[in-house]
């Protein structure tokens, strides 16, 4: 229950307060107490050094490969007319089975105020798929904008390091405001307003059906992220992330945090798209020795890769237990 509560708090942009001692289990308190005064900077450097990864880390490689493969399947399927994956990311037929992007389907349903059976089938299929795979997994493993945004992020971080620009944060609550506003706009105007500016749809269509003027808009978004605010679209705007975050509430695929070996040095939060989900890794931030990262997490695995103490790992709830 607390997982769902935490996840909803993160999805609507609330901060989860640091747990009080009463909220913490005795075990985790003992762990925190045993670390007091024992973690030095030299220790962190030592474990970091031992952990040193390659330029593209393990999960990042797998993720980029998956993302490119999925999008190329759409492209190749149309280009060679093999009808394997027809359509685009907003709506598709995979070997004849209907798939509908949940947020696009929501926009259509609200604007059109009517849902045909094929769309219901598409919604249920995709809902079940992401329920099994983690919800916001869509964002980091499939969404083409995510990949471009990741590259833009490297540029942004380099510019920040060079002190040429400064990062500007927004209030995270603004994302849920966007979610409600775009839902209401679809309902009231009768147009799928969000689709007009959705870089996910624009990019997917551009890849499959050829580029257009709409790519200028995507370029502007990337530019905004590079020079003004790190990962602004995914962090503060995109309603697709909220939709899939809600699917992830009940998903067994999560990232698990184990407080035992953690140095609390915060490397994970530095690479994370949604660092608020990792606030429990701050010392005394966890309620229990093992705690799952909330469903606003995109399961991208950057923290899993970067963590020098392997305190963050992928888990499949239920399955991990069965495998033990």
């Amino acid at each position, binding site marked *: 229950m607390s997982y769902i509560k935490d996840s909803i708090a993160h999805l609507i942009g609330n901060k989860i*307060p*640091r747990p009080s*001692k*009463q909220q913490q289990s*005795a075990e985790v308190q003992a762990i925190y107490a045993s670390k007091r005064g024992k973690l030095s900077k030299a220790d962190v450097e030592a474990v970091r050094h031992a952990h040193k990864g390659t330029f593209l880390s393990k999960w990042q490689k797998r993720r980029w490969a998956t993302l490119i493969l999925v999008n190329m399947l759409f492209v190749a399927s*149309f280009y060679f*007319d093999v*009808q394997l994956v*027809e*359509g*685009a990311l*907003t*709506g*598709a*037929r995979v070997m004849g089975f209907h798939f*509908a*992007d949940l947020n*696009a*389907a929501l926009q*259509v349903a609200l*604007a*059109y*105020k*009517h849902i*045909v059976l*094929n*769309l219901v089938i*598409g919604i249920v299929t995709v809902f079940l798929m992401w329920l099994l795979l983690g919800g916001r997994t869509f964002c980091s493993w499939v969404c083409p904008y995510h990949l471009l945004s990741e590259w833009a992020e490297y540029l942004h971080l380099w510019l920040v390091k060079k002190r040429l620009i400064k990062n*500007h*944060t*927004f*209030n995270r*609550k*603004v994302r849920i*405001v*966007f979610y409600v*506003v*775009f839902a209401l*706009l*679809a309902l009231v105007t*009768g*147009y*799928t*307003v*969000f*689709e*007009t*500016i959705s870089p996910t749809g*624009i990019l997917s*269509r551009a890849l*499959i*059906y050829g580029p*257009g*003027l*709409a790519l*200028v*808009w995507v370029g502007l978004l990337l530019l905004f992220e590079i020079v003004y605010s790190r990962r*602004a679209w995914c962090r*503060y*705007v995109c309603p697709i992330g909220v939709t899939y975050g809600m699917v992830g509430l009940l998903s067994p695929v999560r990232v698990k945090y184990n407080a035992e070996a953690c140095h609390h040095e915060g490397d994970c939060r530095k690479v994370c798209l949604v660092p608020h989900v990792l606030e429990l890794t701050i010392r005394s931030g966890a309620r229990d020795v093992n705690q799952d990262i909330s469903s606003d997490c995109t399961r991208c695995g950057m923290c899993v890769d970067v963590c020098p103490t392997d305190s963050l790992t992928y888990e499949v709830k239920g399955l991990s237990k069965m495998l033990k």
Partner: protein
Amino acid sequence: MSDNKQPVKRNKRPLTPKRKEQSRREFLRSSVLAVGMVGASMLGYVPVLQGTSLRLRPPGALKTPDDEQQFYASCIKCGQCVQVCPVEAIKLADLLDGFGIGVPYIDAREQACDFSCDGLQCVLACPTGALTHELDYPADTRMGFARLARPKACLAMQGKGFKGQARGADYKGLLRYEEIDRWNPILVSEHPYDLEICDLCVRQCPIEIRINQCEAAESEKTEQPVARVAQQMGNACPPKHAITLEPVESEDGVMRMKPVVQEGCVGCGVCEMICPVESAAIVVDLDVTADTVKES
């Protein structure tokens, strides 16, 4: 566990003036972001209100001649209709169409819908009902309505014939010529004509072609069991003519042939596509359909 050391709750600590200023600025920035993004998306209303996003839509599009709201609303912008079209007539609209972005349309002059898929494949492919499943045959379609916009440019009206490639050698448009290939459309440029009087708009009209086939089948009246395709074609016999070539007296008193658009026109745009004059003498109007023409 003793709670003596428990500090005052962090969020209860009063904010420093600097922190206060930071959060005030963040709030302002966030408000500007919200207004900016929603504003940007609402710019999509402009082409819709101006009517510049009105276009020829694929068969079965959920719209009235002057209101495409239902079509934009129900379309999930996936392009599955694009993928199934054998003549690649369907394209997806770009950013300048505002809310119509990603919605399918047809540029008839470049490539019209000639119904060479036989079964309205785009309608069958549509996952959301934006192309309604309520129509069964090409003749049920209401895309627009053809009009002889420039009668003086019309070759038939000038008493002229036509010889050669209808749209020149470089034209990439496709049409299905059943007498050449029943199943696959070919390049129009690979099918030159030699006509005493230009009747391309009538000759290539998919509705007229089907009526001719039906009449031929009717006149043959074979005793043999009818093949399934032929049977379907029988069912699909268009009830009304779409376009005919009729003799009229022109201004100089000479009898000339004139293409006359009839009640059965569905607005597919093939006449506009095939018309050899630049720019086309016959065009498809979007603000009328066979139904509204009947009423007025």
